[in-house]
């Protein structure tokens, strides 16, 4: 009897496909999230209205469900692969190689940068999405859009980023997100079979640039709030 998709997807390569596809979904998400955050530079009104339109769009539930499923699959598969890989390489060598035969810091630390990012993500939702609710009011009246009161998420962001401890924690986490993206983005191309001498340098540069742009874009907000 011929083997089905499940047999393929549960193999080591199949699980790598899961890692790559679910990772890429989040790669796209962090970019859009980062660009949305930059609206803070366009002013309080733009920021709050964007946030309002985003969360009142009914499609948001579909998007949120997809993101939860993909990050769940990513974390579960990643941890299960790591546990197996720890068993298949029980001992490392007495000497650490000095040359290119060693692996990059980013690729070696995926499990840790990923785990801390997941913890950060949960706390991040608690702080902002499910955090303190401020009503957005202008000239003494609550702002209402499409019949729903607008939340002053801008106020909460400013309050959080005025605390040096929070900015430090946020900064460390975003550097780790960048580190995770540096290996993850380029690596997902390889996992999905895209590797050609014509494109390899471009793919590597793209992964590098993506990680830096996303991390710096996110960091711009707290730095702006904290310094100015």
């Amino acid at each position, binding site marked *: 009897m011929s083997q089905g998709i499940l047999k393929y997807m549960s*193999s080591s390569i199949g699980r790598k496909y899961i890692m790559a596809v679910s990772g890429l979904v989040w790669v796209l998400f962090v970019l859009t999230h980062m660009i949305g955050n930059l609206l803070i530079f366009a002013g309080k009104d733009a920021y709050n209205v964007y946030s309002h339109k985003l969360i009142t769009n009914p499609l948001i539930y579909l998007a949120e469900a997809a993101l939860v499923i993909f990050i769940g699959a990513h974390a579960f598969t990643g941890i299960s692969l790591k546990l197996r890989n720890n*068993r298949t390489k029980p001992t490392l060598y007495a000497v650490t190689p000095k040359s290119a*035969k060693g692996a990059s810091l980013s690729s070696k630390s995926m499990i840790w940068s990923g785990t801390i990012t997941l913890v950060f993500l949960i706390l991040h939702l608690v702080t902002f999405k499910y955090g303190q609710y401020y009503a957005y009011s202008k000239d003494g009246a609550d702002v209402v859009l499409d019949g729903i009161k607008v939340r002053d998420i801008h106020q909460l962001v400013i309050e959080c980023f005025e605390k040096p401890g929070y900015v430090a924690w946020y900064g460390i986490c975003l550097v780790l997100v960048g580190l995770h993206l540096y290996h993850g983005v380029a690596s997902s191309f390889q996992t999905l079979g895209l590797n050609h001498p014509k494109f390899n340098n471009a793919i590597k540069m793209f992964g590098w640039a993506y990680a830096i742009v996303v991390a710096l874009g996110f960091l711009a907000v707290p730095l702006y709030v904290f310094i100015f």
Partner: protein
Amino acid sequence: MAGNNNSRTMRINLKVWRQQNEKVQGNLVDYTLDSVSPDMSFLEMFDVLNEQLVKKGEEPVAFAHDCREGICGSCAMVIDGEPHGPQTGTTTCQLHMRSFSDGDTIVVEPFRAKAFPVVKDLVTNRTALDRIQAAGGYVTVSTGNAPDGNAIPISKEIADLAMDAAACIQCGACVAACRNGSAMLFVSAKVSQLALLPQGQAERDRRVSRMVWQMDEEDFGSCTNMGSCAAACPKEIKVENIARINREYAHAMLFGRVSERVSDE
């Protein structure tokens, strides 16, 4: 004289992994060789060490070797943390002592991976790789006489790629170098050398499927695209082959009709 830069010979300190068998714990043991010629290969240095040990009535260091000309894949040692030592594209037997300096301390360990249990000292059991090959790394046709040249047209570029993949000598350095103990570079080379050629097409789906399933059944880890394997490979097999096996596997998943074993067909 040892320690003298003008002398033709070198003094080399070795820390060599000694382990009686698979079941007992091993440890690094110090040895010193006073007159190592820079023209000796790394294995010849071990021959000298073993002669000394035998003369002293001690047990010689067990290490795997056969052709000593870089093509058989038998010699397998991790030298200062690197499979086959510091020189790129070189097997241990082709590594010469001129790559080291007088007074160096060199740490020599066996290939480490759960799939490669230590038989004795530096010798590991690498038959897991044979079982992967046996699961599908071949073409099942009666080849008959040698075919006419160019009877099947293959471009020079593709022939070169297939030949590069076929250069794999199954030494297992990729597994030894990988932090996950993954055999993906090896399997990808064995899949690629046939997947690239017309003769390999008929069995492409079942080949990649069964070889990957066998790899998973053995104690190999999964690939995380770190690239240490390709850096360590004495035949400089490229990670491009791993991307190819990922494509081949996706093809088999989506279009193949592959049973788990030959006996199920």
